[in-house]
């Protein structure tokens, strides 16, 4: 979706402000929000693309006014409400109002390390040959889905070159919607900065995105 989360190239946000000796978390609630989010993914049954969509699918003013872990929190609440794991009003009441839904069981402390080490690899076995090869010129499609996508607006409709080929990976556009993994070939596509931003001060930069095959078409007529 063309949401406030898709920030590449947007103006007006001011300078980057690094914080010296920044702590990992800035408040106890951030620690707990982070950990609850990680711990709920498996019992909740959602995937990372569903999580991302739950965070970004909100009015721009809402997205921009929340801090990072506040967005995680509203995303988590939404995922649980959608699955009836949480009932409207329960958080306000501060206690359980509805009996728990059957789930696979909570993440146990002794299983945390193994869960983190396992991670969530997204590469899948290829069933079709790759359409593009390294060095090919491709154009990104000018798509504007109202659902989840990982093709940022600032590269849409632009010509780039295939720089890396990463194998077949879970396709977020369908995975986020519960429509299956539908793995596709994934490429690093590199663009000249001066093509993306003809009026920008820096004419020597190059910028890449990682793009799945359905985002791309050949740049040159066959």
């Amino acid at each position, binding site marked *: 979706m063309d949401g406030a989360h898709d920030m590449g190239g947007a103006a007006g946000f001011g300078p980057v*402000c690094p914080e010296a000796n920044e702590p990992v978390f800035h408040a106890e609630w951030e620690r*707990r929000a*982070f950990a609850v989010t990680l711990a709920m993914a498996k019992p909740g049954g959602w995937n990372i693309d569903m999580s991302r969509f739950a965070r970004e699918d909100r009015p721009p003013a809402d997205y921009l006014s929340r801090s990072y872990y506040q967005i995680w929190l509203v995303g988590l609440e939404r995922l649980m409400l959608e699955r009836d794991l949480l009932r409207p009003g329960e958080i306000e009441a501060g206690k359980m109002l509805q009996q*728990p839904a059957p789930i696979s069981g909570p993440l146990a402390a002794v299983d945390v390390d193994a869960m983190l080490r396992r991670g969530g690899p997204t590469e899948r076995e290829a069933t079709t040959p790759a359409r593009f090869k390294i060095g090919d010129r491709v154009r990104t499609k000018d798509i504007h889905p109202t659902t989840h996508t990982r093709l*940022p607006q600032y590269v849409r409709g632009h010509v780039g070159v295939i720089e890396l080929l*990463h194998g077949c*990976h879970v396709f977020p556009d369908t995975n986020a919607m519960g429509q299956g993994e539908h793995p596709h070939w994934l490429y690093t596509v590199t663009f000249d900065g001066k093509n993306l931003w003809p009026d920008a001060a820096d004419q*020597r930069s190059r910028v890449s995105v990682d793009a799945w095959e359905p985002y791309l078409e050949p740049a040159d007529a066959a």
Partner: protein
Amino acid sequence: MANHHDDHHHGHHHDHDHSELSETELRVRALETILTQKGYVDPAALDVLIETYETKVGPRNGAQVVAKAWTDPAYRERLLADGSAAIAELDYVGRQGEHIVVVENTPSRHNMVVCTLCSCYPWPVLGLPPVWYKSAPYRSRAVKDPRGVLHDFGFELSPDIEIRVWDSTAEIRYLVLPMRPPGTDGWSAERLADLVTRDSMIGTGFPKQPHEVA
């Protein structure tokens, strides 16, 4: 995205929160209570998750990888050919590091990593991302004005050097292999690791110079 930390948290963390954050605190507390009552989460597991990323996984891991690459040419080759596999040799594996690609700085090319769409970051080697990495200023400007971003960090890069920006839009995670500082001939990997900063592995900074750690 709002930078609440910069607004409210400099030097006085927990005790000075805005009412908005107090509301957030109450919400998080209520949420954890409810999820625990329902048997969805075990608070002991939450403690382990927090402890892992506060004390065990962080940029010190990435610094070991970089220092090894600086001192072991065969390792550097393996690292650039298959980042995840070479990094796994040091037992840094797992969540948000399943598919790592290492990109090398050279005298003519400087790499910078961003996630314009959210906050993708190579956790096993760098830990959790800092606030600025997740913030709107960095996510919006890194792809359009990377030299200006470096300026915000206090660095000026020669106009002859190309900046190569990697936007992490998929599950590939990028780690920058910075250039080894001059004046470090004969240094051990252990000593070199002290020169490797987090920002130098994101591309918003450079390794320390030898005199800075003397």
